[in-house]
């Protein structure tokens, strides 16, 4: 077992601290530019042979005429490709070793299995998740960089290369093309008296545009704020077209789901005890208080907090808060609640329990009620916490007495 682990270290290139490796990679490949087709990448490798065929000159003549900068550029491109190939091969070997160690079939070893295996084999006490050991595909570790944007003679592949942002301006051109296509289609529809189908129209309410940072990563080009703003405006023009559903794939390529979608879609299913009683456990936090709450179905409205009755809270307001989600969903007398809470004060603890109860109740009630709970503010983790005191001030906001002299 230990020898195979050692093998893993040697050949699998398990990265203990990804930062230094990726930083090195970033620094060395800063000048790379992107090739947009596979054919172009082939061109890099075979530039000398291509030249001899195209110009009828000998490879030696051409390579002498190439400037030093071009040569260096080509070398760097090749080096990067070689690095990626090597890293990918080593990663694959490491992944297979890991699967064997865990006793799994390498073919069916998913990324989640891989991450769990690393967490199991190398338990880390580090707080920052990014500092913990991981095994990732090189494409996720090394940031994407462009390969070759021009051939041996210095002629760029992309027509918009000299704009400095070829991919960005290509996208803008694509947008205009799409709008013209949609206009043309609309005119044809009206010519043949075909009515517009309202049901088909694009619904963009559940998604939002990529942020500038995400957009830059996607097209591998750094741009100014006004470039991004103009892109968003143009995309909004396209999305606002009545026939925009015809360009759905193109539009959704630059959109991401809103975080709310996750809250509503990932509702865990109710679990059952040995006696067949449905239950759900959730953790809630509010203001340094943490509560672990189990809501049991088929109950009688009993509330237990830290092995005490609801009178654990002497304050009426806190008791009201705990009963709020139960009363809202109309399950006051039909569920039992068992809560363990620690940390914080009375309001923090009751707020944590309220949040946990509401999250647990999602599994018991229908989707419409879940949406109502969300609009009532029961499913939002209250982010308000105590503001720190600042130096030179009496408190968080209060200043020391101002003396004129």
């Amino acid at each position, binding site marked *: 077992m230990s020898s195979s682990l050692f093998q893993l270290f040697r050949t699998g290139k398990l990265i203990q601290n990804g930062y230094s490796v990726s930083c090195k990679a970033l620094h060395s490949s800063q000048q790379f530019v992107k090739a947009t087709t596979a054919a172009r990448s082939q061109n890099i490798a075979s530039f000398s042979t291509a030249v001899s065929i195209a110009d009828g000159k000998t490879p030696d003549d051409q390579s002498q005429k190439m400037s030093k900068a071009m040569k260096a550029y080509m070398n760097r491109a090749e080096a990067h490709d070689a690095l990626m190939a090597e890293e990918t091969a080593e990663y694959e070997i490491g992944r297979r070793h890991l699967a064997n160690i865990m006793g799994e079939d390498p073919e069916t070893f998913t990324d989640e299995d891989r991450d769990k295996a690393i967490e199991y084999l190398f338990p880390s006490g580090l707080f920052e998740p990014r500092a913990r050991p991981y095994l990732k595909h090189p494409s996720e570790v090394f940031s994407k960089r462009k390969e070759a944007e021009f051939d041996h003679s210095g002629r760029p592949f992309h027509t918009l290369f000299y*704009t400095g942002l070829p991919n960005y301006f290509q996208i*803008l051109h694509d947008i205009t093309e799409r709008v013209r296509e949609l206009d043309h289609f609309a005119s044809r529809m009206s010519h043949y008296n075909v009515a517009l189908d309202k049901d088909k129209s694009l619904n963009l309410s559940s998604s939002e545009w990529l942020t*500038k940072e995400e957009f830059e990563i996607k097209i591998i080009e750094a741009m100014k704020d006004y470039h991004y*703003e103009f892109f968003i405006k143009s995309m909004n023009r396209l999305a606002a077209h009545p026939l925009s559903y015809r360009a759905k794939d193109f539009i959704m390529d630059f959109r991401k789901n809103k975080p709310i979608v996750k809250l509503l879609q990932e509702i865990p299913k109710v679990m059952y005890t040995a006696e067949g009683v449905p239950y759900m456990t959730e953790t809630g936090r509010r203001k340094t208080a943490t509560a672990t709450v189990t809501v049991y179905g088929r109950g009688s409205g009993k509330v237990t907090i830290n092995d005490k009755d609801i009178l654990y809270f002497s304050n009426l307001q806190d008791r009201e808060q705990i009963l709020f989600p139960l009363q809202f969903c109309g399950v006051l007398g039909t569920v039992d609640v068992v809560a363990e809470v620690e940390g914080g004060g009375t309001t923090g603890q009751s707020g944590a329990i309220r949040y946990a109860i509401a999250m647990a109740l999602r599994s018991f009630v229908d989707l419409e009620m879940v949406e109502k709970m969300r609009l*009532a503010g029961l499913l939002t983790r209250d982010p308000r*916490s105590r503001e720190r005191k600042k130096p030179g001030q009496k408190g968080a906001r209060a200043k020391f007495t101002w003396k004129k002299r």
Partner: protein
Amino acid sequence: MNHFRSVLLRSSNFRLPRESHARVSSVALVQNVLQRSYSRYSPQYIEPVYRIEDLEKIKESGEFKERQFTPVKAALTNQTSSVFYDPLVTKFTNYIMKTGQRTLARDLINKTFENIKHTQLKKKQEAETQEEKDAIETNPVVVFHKAVQNCKPILQLTPVKRGGIRYQVPVPLTEKRSFFIAMRWLVEAGKDKYRDVRFSEQLARELLEAYKNEGRVVKKKQDLHKQCEANRAYAHYRWS
């Protein structure tokens, strides 16, 4: 690079946006929202609707769809969907509260309402005819609502400077503001008492008097209205 950009944009029939030269953050321009520096929530968050009847109204009006993907703030600790919840009483409790001592404020309100109940019940027992008995309202929340209603001013005086002189100009009040002023006056009247009298006793007395359209607070409102009437001549200073 700008030249190339303009060439390309001209060929694709786009106009160069003037705003591109302005120094505006992309987030603010694109998302078109104002940033609130003091809130822990991002500006997209909307207020929660925690009353079941209000949610039913929203459902009927079809606003569900609008709010479908908008994030919602968490409900506050004094907000519930309970039948015993009254928004006006909650607001009043907050006006009584000092330095965040909500428990104490709530105790005071409860004692005040208890006092009102005691007084009214006593009156009811002492009343002779059935008619009189029916006329006496024992529900303290109802008494409180009526009292606040009776104390609400319609106009207030605001100083307006014209030609070097500050005139007190009568100006109409919004609903929210008039509620706030009425409740503030009631709390102030409750605090304005002899040393041996409890705040809850005093406040109960004030509320009962205001309920009958008598007492200090109603007098204050009427005085304000008289002053507004007196300063009617300056009303046009609001606009000129």
